């Protein structure tokens, strides 16, 4: 069965057809039908990007679709927005792919529709989890993750007195897959947690951190915010890391950190009194938070946003986090098969390109969500 699936998948990929109905690898068409009504506002960008494969001189066309729709339910306003985009060679690829000479690699990318939901609970802050400081739910096809952010007062690490602390914990709910039952999800959970930490928190010295830790300090060496980022995988259909990273970015964008007033104690050794305001909140700057792009290698191709079916046949996958400057903030490799160093460098340049687009879409949608929240 497994080998059959593999050959089938490979056949499909080499024909540049996605095994999912309605999701070609290189050409756009309507997303797979879902329950949610999808009134789309469509942006089509035709631009000549530098070719992804330096040996191939074909013009790369980028199609970016973004869609947002608002539906107002009786008691709560639900806001959905989604995007889907693809990069690849123009033309009718289903045919050219077959006839084209076996180039080193063909890059065929298409994200599933991402639904980032921030349900607004009556008169409160945006967020799916009302008791958290910030939260978000991201759906990527059948993958569904929830991220909640909680800020608590803590003490800075003695070796880094001018920085706050961030902890990332990911949990895989058994609802997502029976194999996560009991302690079965632990391995994946810790792997995801570590990968996200690597991508978001920068080096040991704190350089290159996506979350500005020094903004979390209240009194140097005494009081700081401890940011707890809790992720929960509710439904899993591949590409968990990208979904979680996007959810963290969105959740951080609607995170309100309470304003504090500090009364310094009489002597410098005293623990200062901290007054936490429950009315005024400070917004978090999320422009520096990187996005994660996972490129999964199936056969000779690498694809973005692999479903679990596609992941089951992958030889290896590289997750690359890209920030707004186009710098690489973290990289992890999964899967056993080795990769040629030049392929990795090539993947990095593709990820940079995809990441830029993902970033701009996420940013604009966050802005739109904020704007509409303020309107309310």
């Amino acid at each position, binding site marked *: 069965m497994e080998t059959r699936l593999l050959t089938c998948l490979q056949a499909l990929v080499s024909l540049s057809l996605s095994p999912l109905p309605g999701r070609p690898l290189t050409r756009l068409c309507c997303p797979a039908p879902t329950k949610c009504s999808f009134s789309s506002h469509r942006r089509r960008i035709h631009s000549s990007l530098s070719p992804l494969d330096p040996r191939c001189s074909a013009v790369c066309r980028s199609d970016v679709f973004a869609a947002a729709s608002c539906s107002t339910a009786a008691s709560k306003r639900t806001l959905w927005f989604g995007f889907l985009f693809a990069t690849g060679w123009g033309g009718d690829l289903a045919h050219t792919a077959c006839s084209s000479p076996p180039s080193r690699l063909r890059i065929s990318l298409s994200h599933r529709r991402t639904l980032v939901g921030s349900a607004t609970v009556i008169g409160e802050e945006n967020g799916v989890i009302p008791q958290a400081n910030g939260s978000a739910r991201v759906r990527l096809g059948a993958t569904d993750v929830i991220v909640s952010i909680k800020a608590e007062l803590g003490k800075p690490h003695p070796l880094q007195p001018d920085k706050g602390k961030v902890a990332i914990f990911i949990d895989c709910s058994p609802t997502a897959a029976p194999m996560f039952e009991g302690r079965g999800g632990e391995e994946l959970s810790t792997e995801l947690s570590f990968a996200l930490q690597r991508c978001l928190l920068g080096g040991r010295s704190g350089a*290159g951190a996506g979350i500005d830790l020094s903004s979390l300090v209240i009194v140097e060496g005494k009081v700081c915010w401890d940011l707890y980022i809790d992720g929960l995988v509710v439904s899993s259909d591949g590409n968990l890391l990208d979904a979680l990273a996007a959810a963290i970015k969105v959740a951080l964008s609607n995170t309100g950190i309470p304003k504090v007033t500090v009364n310094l104690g009489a002597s410098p050794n005293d623990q200062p009194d901290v007054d936490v305001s429950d009315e005024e909140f400070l917004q978090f700057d999320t422009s520096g938070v990187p996005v994660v792009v996972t490129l999964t290698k199936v056969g000779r191709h690498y694809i973005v946003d692999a479903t679990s079916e596609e992941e089951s046949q992958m030889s290896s996958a590289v997750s690359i986090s890209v920030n707004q400057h186009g710098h*690489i903030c973290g990289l992890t490799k999964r899967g056993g098969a080795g990769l040629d160093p030049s392929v990795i460098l090539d993947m990095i340049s593709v990820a940079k390109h995809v990441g830029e687009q993902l970033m701009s879409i996420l940013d604009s949608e966050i802005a739109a969500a904020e704007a509409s929240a303020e309107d309310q």
Partner: protein
Amino acid sequence: MATNPSTYALSQSSESKQRLQQRRRLFQETDWTRSDGRSFHQCRPAFLRTGATNAASGSAYAEFGVTKVIVSVFGPRESKKAMMYSGTGRLNCNVSYTTFSTPVRGQGSDHKEYSSMLHKALEGAIILETFPKTTVDVFALVLESGGGDLPVIITCASLALADAGIMMYDLVASVSVSCFGRNLVIDPTSEEEACQDGALMITCMPARNEVTQLTLTGEWTTAKINEAMELCLDACSKLAEVVRSCLKEAASG
């Protein structure tokens, strides 16, 4: 001794704390000398031996500066009963630390992150098809930690696997590089690791020119990644030579 009272390790007096601060500032400058006198692109001397534990199918001991590691390989042997049937072999990795491996006494527990990283680094190099239905266990114990622990564990594990006669595509060598401002420093010590801006670790099979594992933290430009990768790949192939000569020595001796 059921309830041990809470204890604390001796903290260094304030002078040495200042020294640490000084070092940290020093690392930000463009030119400084490393505490062990190496140049930026020079690795620590590597000492490798096979046959550390005779109860295992294969084992190896590695000493890179202060870092000391023992890896034992068991199997191929019967998989756990709960495991489902598998046509290919399984690889099971575990990394643990001794309580005295770090300057402050630790818990000496398993290191889950390193265990899974070791697994990922090795599985691509082992020909799992050669031992269907069975498991090869790779267990590592870090006797003393002095920086670059994971690369040392991975390299030592590949030597132990070769000692155990497990079929591999190629030997695996691993090297890490730290980034300080503009400088790239290869094979960092734990003191350097504590202050680094970013790190890149490569595990590769030099003869096949394949990267089996790559991790990166901190902010990097593509050009710098390029430079660091080249540096590491070069060091990996040299390290693999050392491993190879150690195996030859063991076979002839």
